[in-house]
């Protein structure tokens, strides 16, 4: 058998092996690595329940940060929020102080940083920082967010109504995968067919050799 066919075949089988390894890695389920929650309506004092917790209140036309931190690509943030009114929820790929800094630099004089107008202006000018956005209408919202790189994230809520509103509960759960699942799956989907294509000349030659051997044996 020709050596180039053998070499190409072995390269192909190796690419298939790597593709299968990546596929296997993508099947490993994520595990919870961290959690943070406001007690879903129950406040605790010295370990004992003392009744319903107060809502986290937001004045009319205000915005606030529920959480900010750093997230990496194999990590996913699961978010659950319950509110008694209509609220906009955003995951922004910047720290909340970036919005304050922008407001401070853009507007002179005394500024109410919590005013939702400034947040809306910031988002209009920097739409690329919005990682996820949604709305709660007097109920709960649940979503998950996976970044594409190591990134600062801020979980922000904004109230556009004329009434003060409140968040009665929220829960954040961090999950970690062994690898960025979508990226690994895509690579696996490409690697296996490429590997098979590389292996075809080798398999063709192998079949030819076997046929020749059979023919010689019959004679």
């Amino acid at each position, binding site marked *: 058998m020709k050596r180039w066919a053998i070499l190409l075949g072995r390269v192909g*089988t190796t690419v*298939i*092996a790597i593709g*299968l390894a990546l596929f296997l890695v993508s099947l490993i389920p994520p595990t919870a690595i961290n959690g943070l929650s406001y007690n879903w309506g129950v406040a605790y004092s010295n370990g004992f329940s003392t009744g319903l917790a107060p809502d986290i209140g937001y004045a009319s036309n205000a915005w606030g940060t529920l959480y900010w931190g750093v997230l990496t*690509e*194999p990590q996913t943030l699961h978010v659950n929020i319950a509110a008694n009114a209509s609220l906009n929820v955003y995951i922004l790929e910047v720290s909340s102080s970036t919005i304050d800094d922008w407001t401070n630099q853009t507007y002179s004089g005394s500024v109410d940083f919590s005013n939702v107008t400034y947040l809306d202006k910031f988002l209009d000018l920097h739409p690329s920082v919005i990682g996820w956005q949604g709305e709660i209408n007097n109920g709960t919202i649940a979503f998950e967010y996976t970044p594409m790189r190591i990134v600062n994230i801020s979980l922000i809520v904004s109230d556009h109504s004329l009434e003060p509103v409140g968040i009665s509960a929220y829960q954040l759960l961090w999950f*970690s995968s062994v*690898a960025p699942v979508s990226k690994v799956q895509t690579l696996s989907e490409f690697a296996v067919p490429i590997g098979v294509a590389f292996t075809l000349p080798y398999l063709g030659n192998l079949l030819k050799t076997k046929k020749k051997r059979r023919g010689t044996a019959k004679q």
Partner: protein
Amino acid sequence: MANRKGRPFLEIFALALKEDFRFPTFELFAFLFCVGTFVFANFGSTMFYSTSVTSNTAYNVTSSALSTVLFIFMILVFKNIAYGLGSDLEKGIVQTYLSYPLKRRSILSAKLLSALGVSLMLFLGVQILSLYILAPDVVIPQFGTVLLTYAASLCYPLLIAGIILLVTLILRRGGSALVLGIVLYFVLEIIQNLITPIATATQLSESGTLSLQIMSLFSPNFALARYYQFYGQTGIHVWVPTASGVIACIGAGYVIVASIFVVAYFYVSRRLSL
């Protein structure tokens, strides 16, 4: 002329490749390297507090990805050198190679290129690709640290590979060299783990620091780990190397490795009777 010299070398290299990586050895190890890198790297479970990636982050990600996979790589190298070359010597296949118009050192080079070079290429290729998929934000800006970590971590396996090669050539038996290599690997691992508490206990004497420095010559990753673990911290009384000290340790480590391989080449050229 060069073509005439190169062809027998390639013939022996091809024969060695065929012997060392029978189907599906190469594929199986590629699979294990790939899965091992993702499973053992603890990048996903690390909570970051800043988006700035330091060399310390790159070292931690690379060394965690290396940990167990390096042992799998050593199994492949042990198999190829001790079992492959050892059985060639035992069965007298090396005598067939001597019929080629090649010097003995070229035959050994062809065997080592297959046993060590191709294994190393597979290992580094799969590892760096997997690390790039896992943490491109870490690997690209800190590529120098990633390479330094590989250089420091691979010195110790190459040292053991060199010793195994020498023992295989002297004993002309693969089995004994394989057992000796495995024992040596675990003994050095145990010494590495014991030496830090011993050095801490004897920190008032010079011997504590000296023992750490000697260990760093044989396993430069030991010095690199201490550098990233303790550098800049106050109150550490036991030896912590500087960056140039770590590079000196890596250099010295590779000089030791190279000298063992030179001895092996000398033995094959002048002393090995077949």
